[in-house]
């Protein structure tokens, strides 16, 4: 279903662009490449990332929707579930190979990502040290997260 895959992506992109989820701007990184999406996600108001604009790259594999998309944060973010290694790999349950199912839509992935910013999941952390701080010393977590947001995600 390679041909169908392109059709589905086009359809999904159209739906997202005509009715974008809250606080998100979705574009193709390169108009000729349907498989690489660029998303600017506003830090949710109720979260420690409020005020920041986070750039994400969402890559759809060739055999999408049979394989899950891959989401990376290009903007540095202090978050237990997003790797702090320059790649910004995000750990999201539904994106794991064994959790993914084809009917999942990209808009659902993006909404889950946003929810993850509102409510980190320290029990399934990529950055275990950040998860420890989040669990044991939330004040410190909040402080660092806000600092990073200000430093990396504001005004860019």
């Amino acid at each position, binding site marked *: *279903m390679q041909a*169908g*895959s392109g*059709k*589905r992506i086009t*359809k*999904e992109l159209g739906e997202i662009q005509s009715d974008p989820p809250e606080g998100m701007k979705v574009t193709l990184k390169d108009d000729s490449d349907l498989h690489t999406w660029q998303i600017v996600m506003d830090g949710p108001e109720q979260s420690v990332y409020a005020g920041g604009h986070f750039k994400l790259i969402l890559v759809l594999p060739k*055999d999408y*929707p*049979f394989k899950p998309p891959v989401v990376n944060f290009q903007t540095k973010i202090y978050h237990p579930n997003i790797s702090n290694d320059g790649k910004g790999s995000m750990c999201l349950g539904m994106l*794991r*190979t*064994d959790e993914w*199912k*084809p*009917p999942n839509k990209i808009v659902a992935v993006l909404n889950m990502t946003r929810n993850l910013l509102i409510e980190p999941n320290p029990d399934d952390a990529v950055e275990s040290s950040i998860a420890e701080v989040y669990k044991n010393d939330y004040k410190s977590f909040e402080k660092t997260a806000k600092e990073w947001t200000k430093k990396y995600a504001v005004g860019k």
Partner: protein
Amino acid sequence: MDSHDRQRELVFCHQCSDEWYRDEHGLTCPACHSEFTEVIEPDHDPREDQLQIPADDPPESVPPPLPPHPLRDHNPWANIPDHEDDGPPLNRLQWQSSGPGRVHITGTFVRPFSPNGSPGARSPQPNNTDPFSMLAANFGQMMQSIAAGQVQGPGHGAMGGGAGAGAGGPGVSVRSGHGPGYAWTSRTSSARLTPLTPRNANQPQPPDVPVDDLQRILSETLFGPMNPHGPGPGLRDPSRGLDDHDGPFPRGPPPLLGFLLPLLNPANAAHGDAVYTQEAFDRILSQLMEQNNMGNAPGPASAESISELPKIKITKDMVDPKTGQADCSICMEDVEVGGEVTRLWCGHWFHGECVGSWLREHDSCPQCRMGITQARDQAQGRSGANVDATATASTAANGAPQPSPWSGRRTSSSASQQNAASGVNSPSPAIPGAFGYPEANADEQSRRQSGSQRSSHSREGSTPGFAERVRGLFGRGSNSNSNPNSDHR
């Protein structure tokens, strides 16, 4: 083998285990005058029953200790009553421990013997032209039996002690026997002699397990293939050490220590899947996680089970009543009423091509994750066939999880009757094996081929027009099923 021997019948006394030729002493035992005797026949040798020495029944993996010899299976104790009798051969063995792992056995083997095969030899076997090699073979075999713990009898205590002394070391036993006119030496490792084999509960059991065996079991359990890390330095596998060096003294610690040491070493505190420390548990856990990269994702579904999935036509009931539209949730393309889709056993439907691509990698419904193989089996077990016999399509669909229109009928009609009905209603081959009772179905298919629709009717005698009623029930298609389209919305 001379023909003379072959013709003479040998008689065996169950009382005293004596043997004699029938034409010489008749059927009464010349030794004890018992009449409890039996003629020995080539295919039935009562001596094998009498004696509990499975001399020709070594564990399969034991390499024959000696080259094949006509008398290899000969039982040297055939004429010696085993239990109470203080039979000479075993007691005459001298066991001498000459250091850890080294046992000296000196045995004198005396028995009446005549190379001519006269009754004195008490051996029905021919070809005993080389008495010394025969005796050597007998003795070697006896030693094998002893080492394997297959011998019962008064000599066993002595043997156990000998084996115990041997087991204290690496299990290499140097055994030698000599008698008047011949000498025999054998250097064997207990590891080869006593491999782990399944216990044969049908055979008499040795009264106690030789220490050799226990040691091997322990070492295999602790250091065997189940422990990927193996023993550390100094924790040399005793049984493996045997093959590495010839010296009678093992380089590792004694077996018992070897058994205890791993328990004290946290890194080795694993006994198969059982662990004793957190460290070992963590290691096993991470190992398991590495092995199962895909987590609990199901493997691919079989091509057969995919092809068995029913293809159905989209009906008006399957599309969204408001928009009049439905789409395949995989490719998100609209499907028209009348278009053909593939329905899984859970009721979710997709384009055949779309769901095929998924199922070939994952045996699960893309929507609800129900495995199609599993669901099919459940469907078969629960409600049997559910036939979708619309006028346009004679394809069969199985809406198992939903309350089936069959369920009411099932109480009164047998499974084979259902299958009969399915045969009536879907003349084209339906889903092979998709019915609840494959045998009955196969039976029914053959019946169908012989054009026996009438017979199924006749078995439905109490409900005339049964097929029509079924057709009526299913003519409305999937009305009775919940709208699958709504499930993935």
